[in-house]
């Protein structure tokens, strides 16, 4: 009952100008805190949570979009460039948000559990890694034995072309993988996708012979990035260097650029998802998710619909893969292990299966937990270890604490706990998907 009463109180408060005031205050306070204290995790949390008040408080949509654009396009890049660590966190959040949104199409809309989602990510990443590096000329050399100055196969700007190519290749991979298992119950699909994820990783690890396609466990580097025009850096510097306090270097500018790319992908996914959700296909997906037999009875071609969902989800992962390869300039098979797949799945489930804002929230929460909270906790424990402090009651000296206890390395524990707790207590996620009524009357569908 507490939840409903809280909701009532919140709704009562959330009227009129209150929304505008809270949003503005939160954004300004967050930005100021991060700006003035570039090392504080707490300040960053206050700042990033302003997106939450932007979502929850009631205000005019145009106002919300304006504030959102200001945040995404101006404040975040400026703050990120001022403190590169924040930009890294934000970039990771946007990468994982895009991946989770892609997985959400498969898991959330169609109800197909895909446990090997990063395999498609890997397909995209290796695609660009192969064509956007010197790997083509390394084919006949064992890893580590290639001559030093080999030419690049393609210019860096082919990156843009490969965004498209990756979408197509990943979609085809998804369809090929989905074909044999779509007729079976969902849990088979889960295991087969899991297996596929491992197959891709093992292939990436071992295809350095007989011909050296992937360079094995060492991974491929350097991978090219698209060229950055001089004037962009100059423009950014002339606009913001005063606020930032120093001139921005090219490398940092690249990070900003990839953040924007990820943002574009997120917007594209949201757009595609929303449009699909309102279309015949989206309704067919929902029908397949809710009851396959009933869906067949309605004349929905369920295998085709499932494959479509699978392909759409895969293509977004492929796209993000190209982005990852270019932004990191280095990829290795270990970036695509099973834990990554489960991590993305945990984000979807934590946020709310099928819910776009929920999934983004899930990605943000888990990435921050992973990159900031767990690591912060590790550092804190390390400090304690070096101090002479003693736990009072049980008389345990922190010095004696095993060095194995390093919270940053226990992500699986975190993901596992989140999955179990969410499934038992709140399977619909933090921000549940709104079940829209699809009645006869057109007005109510809005």
């Amino acid at each position, binding site marked *: 009952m507490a939840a409903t009463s809280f909701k009532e109180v919140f709704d009562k408060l959330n009227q009129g100008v209150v929304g505008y005031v809270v949003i503005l205050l939160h954004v300004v306070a967050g930005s100021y805190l991060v700006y003035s204290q570039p090392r504080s995790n707490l300040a960053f949390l206050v700042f990033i949570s302003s997106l939450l008040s932007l979502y929850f408080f009631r205000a005019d949509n145009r106002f919300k979009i304006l504030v959102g654009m200001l945040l995404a396009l101006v404040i975040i890049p400026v703050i990120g460039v001022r403190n590169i660590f924040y930009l890294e966190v934000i970039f990771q959040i946007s990468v994982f948000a895009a991946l989770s949104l892609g997985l959400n199409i498969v898991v959330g809309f169609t109800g197909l559990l895909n446990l090997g989602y990063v395999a498609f990510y890997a397909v995209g990443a290796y695609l660009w890694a192969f064509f956007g590096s010197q790997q083509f000329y390394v084919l006949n050399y064992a890893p580590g034995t290639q001559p030093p100055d080999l030419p690049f196969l393609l210019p860096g700007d082919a990156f843009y072309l490969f965004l498209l190519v990756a979408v197509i290749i990943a979609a085809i991979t998804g369809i090929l993988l989905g074909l044999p298992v779509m007729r079976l119950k969902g849990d088979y699909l889960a295991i087969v996708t899991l297996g596929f994820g491992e197959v891709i990783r093992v292939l990436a690890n071992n295809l350095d012979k007989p011909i050296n396609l992937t360079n094995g466990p060492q991974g491929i580097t350097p991978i090219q990035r698209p060229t950055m025009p001089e004037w962009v850096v100059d423009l950014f510097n002339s606009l913001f260097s005063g606020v930032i306090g120093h001139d921005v270097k090219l490398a940092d500018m690249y990070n900003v650029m990839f953040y924007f790319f990820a943002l574009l992908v997120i917007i594209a996914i949201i757009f595609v998802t929303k449009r699909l959700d309102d279309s015949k296909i989206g309704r067919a997906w929902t029908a397949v998710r809710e009851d396959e037999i009933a869906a067949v009875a309605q004349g929905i071609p369920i295998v085709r619909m499932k494959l479509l969902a699978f392909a759409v989800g895969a293509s977004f992962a492929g796209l993000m893969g190209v982005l990852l390869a270019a932004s990191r300039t280095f990829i290795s098979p270990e970036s695509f292990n099973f*834990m990554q797949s489960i991590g993305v799945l945990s984000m979807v489930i934590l946020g709310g299966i099928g819910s776009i804002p929920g999934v983004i929230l899930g990605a943000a929460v888990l990435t921050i937990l992973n990159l900031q909270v767990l690591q912060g906790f590790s550092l804190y424990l390390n400090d304690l270890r070096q101090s002479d402090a003693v736990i009072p009651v049980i008389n345990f000296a922190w010095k004696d604490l095993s060095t194995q206890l390093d919270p940053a390395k226990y992500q699986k524990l975190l993901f596992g706990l989140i999955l179990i707790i969410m499934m038992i207590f709140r399977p619909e996620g933090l921000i549940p998907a709104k079940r829209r009524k699809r009645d006869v009357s057109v007005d109510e569908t809005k």
Partner: protein
Amino acid sequence: MKQFLRYLNVKELVRPIGQMLAFSLGSAAVMSAIILVLALVLDKTAVGTALVNKLNVSLFSYTLSNLPQVVIDGLTIGFVYAAIALGYTMVYGVLQFINFAHSEIFAVGAFVGVEVLIFLQTLGVLSGASVFMAYAYLSLAILLAMLAAGGLAVTVEKIAYRPLRNAPRLVPLTAAIGVSFLLQDLIRLVEGLTTGQFNRIIPTFGNFDDRITGKMTLGATKLFIGISVKSIIVIVAAVLMLVALNYLVNATKVGKAIRAVSQDMRTASLMGINVNRIISITFLVGGLLGGAAGLLYALKFTRIDPFIGFFPGIKAFTAAVLGGIGNMTGALLGGIILGLLETFAGSYLGVFTMGAAGSEYKDIFAFSILILVLIFRPQGLMGKNVGQKA
């Protein structure tokens, strides 16, 4: 004695042994025949000449001389897979649910057993133990591993799966993945905090590392047959467990209840069967088998880490699907076939592809089989139809 025999269903004791013999010998014979024919065919091609240039031995005699060892290794690992696969298949039979955490139950069994042995070693009783005592200690370790794993399986079911019994299918599956991840890191945490390291090595004691060897001449080729005591222990222990399980399921009252619940849970409960208790028992039995399999695996491969459960778990699941999930005989057959296939692939792939692909692909071999099975025979070799009407 006579009184006792009357209550003992002898048929159910003999039947599984017969099955196991038939399955092992049959699949070993079929696979050996295939590989030998393949070797004969490829002997005169580039593959054969490459081997002659490298090792100065013809492909056929290379294949033949390695064959006995490969078959024995394959059967050993196959029985371990079968023991794990039975845990999957029993739970699936009762709840139609893939117990993803079963691979970690297996890992916990391995760790508990190995830690018990390491503890015995620090007490100093292992090094000078006679052969009889060595087997007694090993049995003790297996027993404790089984108890720990079985208890854990029941606990996991109570805490994580029971509240989700009536939820949509993917909900318990997701929870099971969560349990699997959680347990992996919990093992790591406990091991890290108590011993400071999480790669554990099983102590050497007794005569487990001895090999019984024999020689045999077959035409021009000399066959060296060597079987380590370890392999015999693994196979014997697995066979004993499988026979006991078969007896439990097919010849006791509890087993009848388990079968009833897996046929129709609601009707079974109407017949006065305590469904919750039967499900707990199912998890317990699966856990006992998994835990013992864990220690047997550790005995065979000596080194364990908190993530050892993953691949055996996946392969055992594949074995269960291959045999027909929900079907216990199928799981046995699937485990044996998969163990053999994998060992054959691991040993011969390198030679047959001229070094292009080797044993590093062993681990994904199971997945290829899984996908092939799902395309061509989704109900498995011995199972009922599992395809959703499409």
